[in-house]
């Protein structure tokens, strides 16, 4: 395992792995709809969810997982806070998008000063390095969540369900009694729905592992300006402070007011 990959994986402890699985389960539907199913890291998918990417190999890759992680499915997420020059946020966002698209990724979300990009996991490290070169990195975070076990469990369960569905189909074909047919059809429907759900979950995990998410927040350095020019260019000079009067030396002077004078008749 290379250094960066070791660092990435080391940042994800058992607790985060559990959390990641739960989080992936919770977010299954929306993310699956958002992300296209593509290459999965070192995993064998059922035909229905098997990716077909071959063109990606043409792009230079930088390994994200070690040689001994062939059967691992790891979901990478990265966060960067980058400080750029004054008024350079738009250009930096354009550059970051170009990096992501050039790596075969896409923009998942974008605001005036934030980006959420999805890049192929195989190019996660290289993309992160390119993002970091856009300015001064003020904070950086990477999480790697291993969903291999969950993926394997789901695969086994899918296989079993498909076997069950075959048996039910055969049973249905041989059924004569109407009541029995209805009962078997109902069970067949339940199993089919469960198979669809599990295949969706597999697609989600495959997508998440195939594409890493990088969230970038941009901030700008304050504009460096010549103080003398600021006064001339921006606004007329502030009015001079009022001249010092005797108020502090002879306090009664501040009490000489017509309001105080005529106010005495009220008391």
């Amino acid at each position: 395992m290379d250094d960066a990959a070791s660092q990435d994986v080391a940042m994800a402890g058992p607790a985060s792995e559990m959390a990641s699985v739960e989080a992936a389960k919770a977010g299954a539907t929306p993310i699956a709809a958002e992300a296209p199913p593509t290459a999965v890291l070192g995993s064998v998918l059922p035909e229905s969810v098997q990716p077909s990417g071959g063109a990606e190999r043409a792009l230079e890759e930088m390994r994200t997982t070690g040689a001994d992680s062939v059967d691992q499915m790891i979901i990478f997420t990265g966060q960067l806070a980058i400080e750029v020059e004054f008024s350079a946020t738009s250009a930096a966002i354009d550059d970051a998008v170009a990096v992501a698209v050039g790596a075969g990724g896409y923009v998942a979300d974008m605001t005036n000063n934030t980006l959420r990009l999805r890049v192929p996991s195989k190019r996660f490290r290289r993309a992160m390095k390119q993002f970091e070169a856009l300015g001064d990195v003020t904070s950086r975070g990477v999480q790697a969540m291993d969903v291999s076990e969950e993926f394997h469990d789901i695969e086994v369960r899918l296989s079993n369900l498909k076997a069950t569905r075959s048996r039910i189909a055969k049973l249905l074909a041989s059924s004569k009694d109407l009541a029995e047919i209805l009962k078997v059809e109902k069970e067949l429907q339940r199993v089919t729905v469960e198979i669809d759900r599990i295949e969706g979950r597999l697609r989600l995990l495959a997508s998440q592992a195939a594409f890493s998410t990088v969230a970038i927040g941009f901030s700008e350095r304050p504009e460096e300006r010549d103080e003398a020019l600021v006064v001339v260019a921006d606004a007329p000079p502030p009015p001079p402070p009022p001249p010092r009067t005797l108020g502090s030396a002879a306090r009664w002077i501040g009490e000489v007011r017509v309001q105080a004078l005529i106010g005495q008749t009220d008391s």
Partner: protein
Amino acid sequence: MKRMILTLAALGSLLGGCASAHLDTPNGFAAYEDNETYDFYASDGEGVVIAVRTEKNRPQGDLSYWTSSLDAQLRGAGYQTHDVADVKSADGHAGKQLQYVVDDNGRDLVFWVSIFVTDRQVVLVEAGGDVAFFEPKVAQIQSAIASLHVG
């Protein structure tokens, strides 16, 4: 005995430092007693007021010094100078009279400050009120100021 009383009175006057300035109450005005701020305080039925304030001449300054100090303070508070005049007290002290108008939340007020300075004290005769009520009484007020005894 009589000599002792006179001596004590003279000593008291010296120790007190400030002889109380006073002026004649203008016609149509009523004087108030025991005012904590002013040595003399009188107003008419329409809220026009004339009052005498006596302060120590500290820091020691002449008429020009106190006039400019008060003028700067009042103009800084939004008072607009209407006129500046020389005045004289009944006991012969030369003074300055600063006349202002000021808008007090939509209410136009007149404020006159007549300043007299001795080595020991600064005597101010302040007069003011609504423009509409003050102007008809200008003569009485000027007359009252001229009756001032600075002491």
